[in-house]
């Protein structure tokens, strides 16, 4: 699909669900979803319109002094990358699973869950994907406040 058409269609589709839309690069469009609940609707819309496949889910912790975590869902189609950005509170980070509409999302969501401590609601297999089975509970390595010493102490 042509880059312009893809980005325009995505904008029509997801703009109402977003608080803010940015185009950081010509081939990218970032939607800051106003509510985490909008994620499923937005992703389903992109899926139905064949606006790319889920290329990756990026978790991001803006810092120990921040109260939020950010989750980025990157959809790639031909030349364009459409990113759905969801902000969730660090105190109870929860997000709905995408596996119902995109089965391939499972490994990405399992990674997000173990690396950032985000609870993915509805994920059929929430076990560790990358981290060892004896990894201490409540320790999330990609959070900014992660200290490696905690692994020594837990042994």
């Amino acid at each position: 699909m042509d880059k312009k058409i893809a980005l325009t269609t995505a904008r029509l589709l997801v703009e109402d669900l977003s608080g803010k839309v940015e185009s950081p690069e010509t081939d990218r469009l970032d939607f800051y979803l106003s509510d985490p609940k909008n994620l499923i609707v937005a992703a389903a819309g992109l899926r139905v319109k064949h606006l790319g496949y889920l290329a990756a889910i990026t978790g991001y912790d803006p810092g120990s002094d921040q109260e939020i975590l950010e989750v980025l869902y990157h959809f790639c189609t031909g030349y364009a990358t459409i990113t759905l950005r969801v902000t969730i509170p660090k105190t109870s980070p929860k997000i709905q699973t995408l596996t119902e509409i995109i089965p391939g999302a499972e490994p990405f969501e399992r990674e997000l869950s173990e690396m950032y401590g985000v609870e993915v609601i509805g994920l059929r297999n929430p076990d560790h994907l990358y981290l060892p089975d004896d990894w201490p509970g409540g320790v999330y390595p990609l959070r900014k406040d992660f200290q490696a010493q905690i692994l020594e102490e837990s042994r």
Partner: protein
Amino acid sequence: MGAKMQTNKTDGKFTVPIGPQHPALKEPAFFSINVDGEIVTNAYVRLGYAHRGIEKAAEDRNWVQTLYLLERICGICSHIHSTAYCLGVEKLAGMEVPPRAQAIRVLVAELERIHSHLLWLGVASHEAGFDTLFMYSWRDRETVMDILEGLTGNRVNYSANLLGGVKYDIDSAQADSIRQGLEFLQERLNYYLGIVTSDALFLKRTRGIGRMTRNQAEVLGAVGPTARASNVARDIRIEAPYSAYEHFHVSIILETNGDLEARFVVRIKEMLESCRLINEILDSLPEGELVMRMKRRINPGETVVRVEAPRGELFYFIKSNGTDKPERIKVRTPTICNMSSVVKLAIGSQLADVPVILAGIDPCFSCNDRSVHIDHRSSKTCRWTWEELRKYGIRYYNGDHS
């Protein structure tokens, strides 16, 4: 790991754990495979045995150190990781890399694709019991390894990229030796293409096996040669040309069958296309500088980089906070996309076909050591190595179903 073989007495189904360690082959992964007699009814995968926390480590290093770190994510496709990273950082810094450097980057990337696909050709034919092809393809792979060593001094982890360009130039003597090597490879590849599509015994192990339809490939998010063998036109070099691919065009290689045979054909044809592209680059290598000076601090911002690794789309998300260290680097390798597809493909197939189906996606960790197998007919329990499972597959297809 709790990798226990489980027997469900009520319905006579068994769980066969495979992996994770293997000292000889590539990398570790664990598969838990449920079988009903010979037929696989369900399969699960557990990764992470080679997880080194590189995304976290990158946050503690400066931009230059991170380049060397990321190049070590993979020993087979190291160059494409450093290329993706360099492209991203250069984009954030607003730098234009000289055309000659871009062409050399792409040239090394295509040499890497040939070496990776030849490696795969050997591994996959070995798993299918065709060791002659394995030995021939690995012998021929030495040709491309020698070319890479001649260019960069290294057989793997070539370290050809720098932030802002490349380290190594190509002179006319090197260009001639590359052309010579490629001529030999092209002749061999055409021969292999004939073999994998005509050898009756080999076709029994590949034709119609591990079939993935176009729709499945799209829904499961398969990438690279695995997707292209199912007629999904997904190739970043064509869809979103980066670096020198904007000037040197690649033709997409597609097959329609989606079975193992198609994956062999796609990869061999891709190597031939790579040879053609390398020759084209050598013939019209732009003149000019090799590297630009790069600043230590990178402007704050975010960027997404997508490149075509030998196994498929490699995705990088890079976020800079304006200091000399990256804020966040997300790496999504192609194998993880193809892994969920292979797990689905295994369902409904013969246990004997599992090794070659796994190898079919060219996983970056195709090695699986121990597997426990129970013969439910004789209630005999035995522990199998990956090698024994492979041999069992070959025996099974020789008509020995004992």
